[in-house]
């Protein structure tokens, strides 16, 4: 995480020094990359972490919350019951809402109502990073879209810019809503945005994300984590050989969470 942040700051300082040109360059550059990589994996020799969700396997375990609980306990995510103010990093929604553009009037009831696991997509072209006025949210070299809650001014432009509803704002102090605060991970203050970070703190220690670990341990085996830049990785092979969907593909955000229905 620290090295990613440093890398990021270097790039940002360069961009700031170049002023407007750099700003325009970055989003035009991103488009060029989108075009060049349409049929190819992302460039660069480093890692590109991604997640694949097998929605059928996930749905077989009705009411299972193993991944959600693991994530929320690990990261001190508050449990706020009212929908207006809730904070969530990982959650489930029905296929008919998640893939509005893929279902139609003849889609079967089971499919339409099948719960899908949702989290930050860690897009390769993240709109939240583009709009953030302070670089409090930024892209790390190996993929995860990160959040610096100490720099965030709470303007919520990233919440507005995210097409996936993956970002939560702390409308109030979250601490009273955390059952046991785990001192290993800092809880957030009120007035800042938070979201899934792909467990960058665990990745740095060579561990898989907490949700993936919990899913595997529960026996469901619906979540697969790996490096898309590694041609022999299991996730890369699955994404290559099956129709793995990404949410709102047409927006050009290039999500790195893949779904098989």
């Amino acid at each position: 995480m620290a090295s990613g942040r440093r890398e990021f700051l270097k790039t940002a300082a360069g961009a700031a020094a170049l002023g407007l040109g750099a700003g325009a360059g970055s989003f035009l550059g991103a488009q060029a990359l989108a075009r060049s990589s349409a049929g190819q994996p992302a460039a660069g020799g480093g890692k590109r972490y991604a997640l694949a969700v097998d929605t059928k396997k996930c749905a077989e375990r009705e009411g299972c919350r193993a991944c959600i609980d693991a994530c929320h306990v690990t990261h001190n995510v508050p449990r706020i019951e009212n929908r207006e103010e809730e904070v969530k990093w990982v959650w489930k929604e029905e296929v008919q809402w998640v893939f509005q553009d893929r279902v139609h009037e003849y889609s079967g009831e089971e499919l339409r109502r099948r719960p899908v696991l949702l989290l930050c997509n860690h897009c390769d072209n993240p709109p939240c990073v583009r709009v953030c006025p302070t670089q409090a949210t930024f892209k790390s070299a190996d993929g995860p879209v990160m959040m610096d809650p100490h720099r965030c001014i709470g303007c919520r432009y990233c919440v507005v810019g995210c097409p996936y509803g993956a970002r939560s704002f702390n409308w109030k102090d979250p601490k009273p809503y955390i059952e046991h605060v785990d001192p290993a991970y800092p809880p957030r203050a009120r007035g800042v945005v938070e979201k899934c970070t792909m467990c960058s703190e665990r990745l740095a220690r060579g561990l898989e994300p907490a949700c993936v670990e919990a899913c595997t341990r529960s026996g469901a085996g619906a979540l697969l984590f790996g490096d898309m830049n590694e041609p022999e990785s299991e996730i890369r092979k699955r994404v290559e050989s099956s129709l793995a969907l990404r949410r709102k593909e047409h927006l050009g955000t290039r999500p790195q969470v893949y779904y098989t229905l």
Partner: protein
Amino acid sequence: MLEKALKGSGKYWGLMCFLALLIGVGLGCYLWQFRVGLQITGLSRDVPWGFYISQFTFLVGVAASAVILVLPYYLHDFKAFGRIVVLGEFLAISAVIMCMLFVFVDMGQPMRVLNVMLHPTPQSVMFWDVMVLSGYLLLNVVISRVTFGAEVRGVAPPAWIKPIIVLSIPWAVSIHTVTAFLYSGLGARPFWLTAILAPRFLASAFASGPSLLILLCLLLKRFTRFDAGSKAIQKLGVIVVYALLVNIFFVGVELFTALYSDIPEHKHHFQYLFLGLEGKTTMVPWMWFSQIVGLLAVLFLLNPKVRENERFLALGCLGVVVAIWIEKGLGMVVGGFVPSTQGSLMEYWPTAPEVAIGLGVYGIGFLVLTVLYKVALGERELEEA
């Protein structure tokens, strides 16, 4: 110069006390919000921007509309605006101050707001909006101070101010364009993802801003010895009518594109605003009221005979301000969030403390405006005496 604001009639002090009361109540509510967070507002996960940001958007338009006086007066030597051009600049100053305060009260971590300057981020439109708004405030402070100072001393303004005045014209257009880009550059929000948003913002600004200015001039005429002159007011009236017609046309163009194409993600937002979706109808009466009042105002004001009657003109201008305030200060922002990116329908309505904080900000803006107008009028009376 500023000492002119310290002497005034009972009515003047009555107004000041009223504004101070608004500010006091707003400040109290803000301190509460500062302690417990934005939970005291009606904002939510699905509607993260509401009353504050929509007031900001509306007021950027009011600020930009000063150009409607500056351009004819300085570039086309339209003398009739000579007496009121400084009033337009003062209105712009107070509007930009309100804009900044509305953004400030919307922040979850207001003490960190300067991070925007500390970590400049050219790829963020919000960074540019902060830049152009601060620049516009500075321009108007410098221009009004230099030109009005020269007028008071009875000399011509220095030559160096002319290029700065010319610069302020495209700058005024830029503040509302950049503000529209805050919204129209987001793939996540199909309601705002339209190239007409910036032109529409400008059209509605050039209708509502001059309307407000006409109302202020008519109030000054009634309660002070200042008369803007009927030629200036009538010319502003014509500008209001044209701008409003263009705005109505732009709204129609948007409605056609969304409804005729019949693409659900574009259509749903208009359906929500004008018909309601699945029984969620909070915005419906407001939107119809806004559109009907806007249409009636334009039909009313189109007739030159009606415009010449200052009572009717005031009524029409009030209609324009109300119509655009609802359209831009409520429907435009909230409509973009319902339905949400995930198709859910969570409605929004501001809470009482949220409105009180907003009225407090308006109180500060109108206090600044009152002081500035008092100074301007006081100095003018001295000149004439």
